[in-house]
């Protein structure tokens, strides 16, 4: 052993001769892929947001906040942003409430529960674009299953063109997003419910509490961390739900179902205006970062309690 080595040098030598070096070497390919396919594009998007770009995405001239100033002075941008918020709030609220209701039902032991659990997961297990295309045909006025069923049962003799008018198109898109998203919420909540110790409910039973009291004083508080995580994830995914809207209506009719993500796509890949599109992507990132930080604050507050 070299007696001239300092404690620091000794640690450094030890490090390189242990498994740590192997670990870092094994991580290197993954890091290279992450840097090439994630970090580099993200950094480039930030750069494009501050530059004038040409139609093949090359940086032409630094303009600082020019793209952002143009965006903030565009009425359409604000309409689309507000619509994205409304879209997210409505979809996540319904997904949370219905998902929780389904989880509570599936937590009860009944005959056929396993089958019910399998059926509930089906919309989420199918690929989102495939589901959206199925619903596109379901909503078709002339050949779709929905209008056919409504007419033949007499429930609605003249059903509308679901995707042809702004309000019905918005809610038609919303329904599909909710339909696809409910299973995830239901399963996450079910997992949370199953982690609640049953003796708490037994003790409550002895105290003579009713169903609502059990839910309000036991289930809800203990489910809060799971609720927060699930709604945060759902909010992030719903805010950026490109597939459903692009396949069903492409943001129409007359941009009435456009949300930020479809608007970004249009600017980047239809108009080839990468500068403004990147600026919108940065704005989206900022909105979702603020949302995540607010959630994180609530989550850690609960953890401390």
């Amino acid at each position, binding site marked *: 052993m070299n007696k001239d080595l300092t404690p620091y040098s000794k640690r450094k030598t030890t490090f390189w001769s242990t498994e740590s070096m192997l670990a870092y070497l094994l991580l290197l390919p993954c890091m290279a892929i992450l840097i090439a396919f994630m970090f580099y594009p993200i950094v480039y998007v930030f750069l494009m947001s501050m530059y004038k770009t*040409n*139609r*093949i995405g*090359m940086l032409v001239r630094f303009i600082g906040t020019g793209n952002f100033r143009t965006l903030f002075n565009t009425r359409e941008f604000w309409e689309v942003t507000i619509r994205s918020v409304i879209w997210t709030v409505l979809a996540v609220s319904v997904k949370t409430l219905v998902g929780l209701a389904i989880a509570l039902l599936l937590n009860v032991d009944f005959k056929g529960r396993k089958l019910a659990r399998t059926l509930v997961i089906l919309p989420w297990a199918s690929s989102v674009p495939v589901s959206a295309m199925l619903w596109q045909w379901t909503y*078709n*006025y*002339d*050949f779709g299953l929905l209008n056919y069923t409504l007419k033949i049962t007499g429930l609605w003799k003249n059903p*509308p*063109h*679901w*995707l*042809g*008018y*702004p309000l019905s198109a918005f809610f038609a898109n919303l329904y599909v997003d909710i339909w696809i998203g409910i299973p995830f919420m239901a399963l996450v909540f079910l997992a949370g419910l199953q982690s609640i110790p049953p003796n708490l409910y037994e003790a409550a039973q002895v105290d003579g509490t009713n169903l609502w009291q059990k839910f309000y004083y036991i289930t809800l508080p203990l489910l809060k961390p799971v609720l927060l995580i699930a709604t945060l994830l759902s909010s992030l995914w719903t805010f950026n739900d490109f597939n459903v809207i692009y396949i069903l*209506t*492409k*943001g*129409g*009719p*007359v*941009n009435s179902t456009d949300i930020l993500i479809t608007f970004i796509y*249009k600017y980047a890949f*239809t*108009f*080839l*205006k990468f500068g403004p599109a990147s600026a919108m992507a940065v704005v989206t990132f900022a909105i979702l970062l603020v949302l995540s930080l607010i959630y994180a604050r609530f989550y850690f507050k609960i953890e401390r309690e």
Partner: protein
Amino acid sequence: MKVGAVEPIEKYLSKKLLDNIEPGAMEARINNILYALPVAIGPRFLYYRTDVFQKYGIAGPPDTFEEMLADAQKINNPPNFYGVGMSGKKYTELTEFAYYLLGNDGYFFKINPDGSYGKCRINDEAGVGALTFMNDLVNKYKVTEPGVTAYTRDEVQDLFVSGKLGIMLSGAFTESILKQRGATFKWGYGLIPHFAGKHRHALVITDSIMMFKASKNKKAAAKFLEFFYQDKWRFEFDKLVGFPPVLKSVGKLPYFQAPIYKVMVESMPGAKGWPLIPEWAECNDIIWDAIGATFLGQKTPKQALDEAAAKIDRIREE
């Protein structure tokens, strides 16, 4: 071209190949430089149900849009059958607005003396007249399928193929779809109509094949083009896609003497294409919004097109 990505192609190709291509198909010749070769060319024309027309005693396809309206009113029988198809949902092409606009002696931009595009003119008398007529077909005379803003061109095609439309303005691809899906009714073709007192201008779409300037294999690419533009392979390609031939020699083959090809050849004189400007995708989007807003009753045709023209001019000035 502006970013220098496209290689001028003429010097790589033989005179024999270039002389064999219909001059009207050379859309990619800009400022006298040829940047690409036409792969497929598709003039738009009219499909109509000959059996339904016969039933109602209508002699043949309409020549003017006014006659088309009269025919559509006769054969219109909602909710099972509609006179004429109309799309109002955003699509890659501005059909059918382009058909009505060109048929009213209109165009998207003023043409400067040097051939470049000037200010947007979709809100002039021709443009407003075209959109007003389209809106009247949908909302006043109700001879189209309802809820047009839910239909792209492909979905209107589905209606025609399933026997629910009497008239449709489309391209050669509809013929292929009709045959592939085994449509059992009888149909015929007519030239794209025009407004009374105006000239007929069919819309012609050209898809082109180009070479990248950065390519390291330009000679090999040219060799491929010489191979692909031989009669044998162009014939197979044109049969598959259903478009008329771009090569003069292939156009003389017996296969292309069928009525549908005859109507496409007759559509070519006076045919006009899309404006070749870098901002066209965005202009397309803006005009679609104007059309949709008109069909939905959110704006009048004049309001919608005035706003669209102003927006397009602003974009082009950026």
